[in-house]
């Protein structure tokens, strides 16, 4: 399965991969002109969920750290973006006409808290959507990866984090809007005019391409080789001179930053954010996309998120028990298709195979 060249940059251009990516991108560019409003918004959402799945794939599929906390990073980015949009509501669309968001008024706040106020400005909010989840992940990562704790314990810690933050956000009603979260936010504007849904779709598509390309580029480099080695045997690689914790913290923080960006884009689309996305149930969804799509495939989680989202959309018209389907699917994948749906594709179509350049066949390499 693992090909000979995972570990370094190619000297030749992977033509087949480029062709397939090009066609796929073209389809995604044409789609919005075919879609109705509902599908446009649904696909935008699914692309973001797919990006979130890719970010989890970096830490789970490649590095072997199973996290149920990626919904948390997503949501932290989402709240940063939600505060920005909420604080930029025009006075007459705000329930109380003033500057203060409605939920703060309900909970008896009289002034805007100092730590929320700066989010009114776009550059601050933009930085915050990335920096808040990344910083949180960095501190958490520093705390858990520089210790003897590993494997299942890390996963259980991520479950506890998700549970604790959910409770915390629900309880801090005055600052977070409690269970309802932050609703009725303004639309994202560019130069004073609101961005139409199709504009948002293309921003999100560009973001998805960015996440996929970045992740692919990183995992094709020596870094990818190191991450996969950490996954297979993290103790051994330390004796080759690598600081395992440093690599884990890096990929964990990067992944959280990407998840946070996805969350930041999710709010203008979804028009609200709430602790539902902090909860373990949503974190599980992300895990399921990666498990079903195929760990360590990058494209797999994206396709799984889109596929499951579309099926769910139609299934929910027929049945109320979509969750049951998801649970059965997860069980089947774990028990029978541990490498996910991507592993069912013909071998020639695997990402690893497509990105393999011809130049390094054994004979050539030996001659070098």
């Amino acid at each position: 399965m693992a090909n000979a060249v995972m570990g370094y940059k190619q000297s030749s251009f992977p033509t087949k991969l480029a062709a397939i990516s090009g066609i796929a991108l073209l389809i995604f560019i044409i789609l919005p002109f075919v879609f109705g409003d509902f599908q446009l918004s649904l696909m935008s959402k699914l692309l973001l969920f797919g990006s979130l799945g890719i970010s989890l794939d970096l830490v789970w599929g490649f590095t072997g750290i199973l996290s149920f906390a990626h919904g948390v990073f997503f949501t932290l980015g989402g709240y940063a973006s939600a505060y920005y949009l909420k604080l930029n509501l025009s006075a007459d669309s705000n329930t109380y006409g003033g500057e203060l968001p409605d939920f703060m008024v309900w909970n008896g706040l009289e002034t805007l808290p100092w730590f929320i106020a700066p989010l009114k400005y776009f550059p601050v909010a933009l930085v915050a959507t990335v920096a808040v989840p990344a910083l949180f992940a960095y501190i958490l990562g520093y705390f858990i990866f520089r210790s003897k704790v590993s494997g299942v314990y890390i996963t259980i810690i991520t479950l506890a984090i998700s549970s604790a933050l959910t409770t915390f956000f629900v309880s801090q009603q005055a600052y977070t809007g409690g269970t309802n979260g932050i609703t009725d936010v303004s639309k994202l504007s560019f130069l004073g005019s609101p961005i139409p849904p199709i504009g948002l779709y293309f921003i999100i598509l560009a973001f998805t391409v960015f996440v996929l390309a970045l992740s692919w580029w990183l995992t094709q480099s020596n870094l990818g080789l190191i991450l996969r080695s950490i996954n297979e045997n993290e103790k051994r690689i330390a004796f080759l001179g690598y600081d395992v914790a440093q690599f884990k913290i890096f990929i964990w923080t990067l992944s959280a930053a990407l998840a946070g960006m996805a969350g930041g884009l999710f709010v203008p689309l979804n028009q609200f954010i709430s602790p539902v996305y902090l909860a373990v149930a949503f974190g599980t969804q992300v895990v399921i996309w990666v498990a079903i799509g195929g760990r360590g495939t990058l494209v797999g989680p994206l396709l799984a998120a889109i596929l499951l989202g579309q099926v769910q959309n139609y299934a929910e018209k027929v049945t109320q028990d979509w969750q049951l389907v998801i649970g059965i699917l997860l069980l089947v994948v774990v028990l029978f298709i541990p490498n996910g749906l991507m592993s069912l594709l013909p071998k020639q179509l695997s990402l690893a195979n497509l990105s393999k350049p011809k130049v390094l066949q054994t004979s050539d390499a030996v001659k070098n």
Partner: protein
Amino acid sequence: MLAFDPSSVFLSTYLLAQEEAEAVAEGGFDIVTLLNQALNGVGIVGILLLTGLGLAITFGVMRIINLAHGEFIMLGAYVTFVFQDAFGMDLLMTIPFAFLVTAIIGAVVELTIIRRLYGNPLETLLATWGLSIVLQGVVKLIFTAQLKYVKAPPYLSGNLPLLSDDAGGALISISYYRMFIIAVALALLGLTMYLFYKTSWGRQIRAVTQNRDMAKCLGVNTKLVDMGTFAYGCGLAGVAGAVISALKTVAPPMGQDYLVDAWMVVVTGGVDKLIGVLAGSLLIGEANAVIAFILNDPTARVIVLAAVIVLIRYRPEGLFTIQKRS
């Protein structure tokens, strides 16, 4: 999306106690509120002990990462509901059935899912999580998402007054049902410890967990021991569900609330000795009650969760070792 219910066993029991406390504390005795809160803590300890005990078997003894533990509690509660609803059975009488049904389901789960994944904790975690979703879905399919109510036996209702004011009204009291929960929890703990440390079945279990190959050579049917032990752990969860069903409403997602708490208890208490689950319940239950008294309940929960995370971080080997099963 799964149903989202941020409340927890702490929250509900706390609110219950809050009402009681407010009702009795009008005399203005702060000490009374404090004592009531401490008693409330004892009530939580009982629930934690009861719900944690099954996990102390499946995770503590067998080292199986079982995220479907909460659903076995839920199943136990539904068994009680069904028997009470259909035959008008007393809650106490339904307990053996709750044990039996959940134990059988547990055995089937071990046979079809867990067994394939021994030695692979992360996959087990994923599979049991999937199982948890499936069990919730199936129960919802059969019973709908509607809340169900289970009646406590009449002879266990009411409160035992411990301290009365001049007019004869109870200042400090503990409900009979809560005492019943503690009694059941302690009895089950005692029974389980007896089974594990004094019987040949217990010796076989310990032999298998300590050295599987050796146990096999000595003629222990390790597969049967695995299945039996897992089924027993699930059965205990079922009993917990049956007993707790009268405290709260019964609904498909109810197990999720208990899952996190049960895990915290087992992790805090340590997995090496069964008695650790009692220590964990006491520590978490009382810490939660005291912090909730000083601050408020959600804060208490966040603090306790954070403390558990720190605990895992610094004492993974003592409290939280997983031996690879081969």
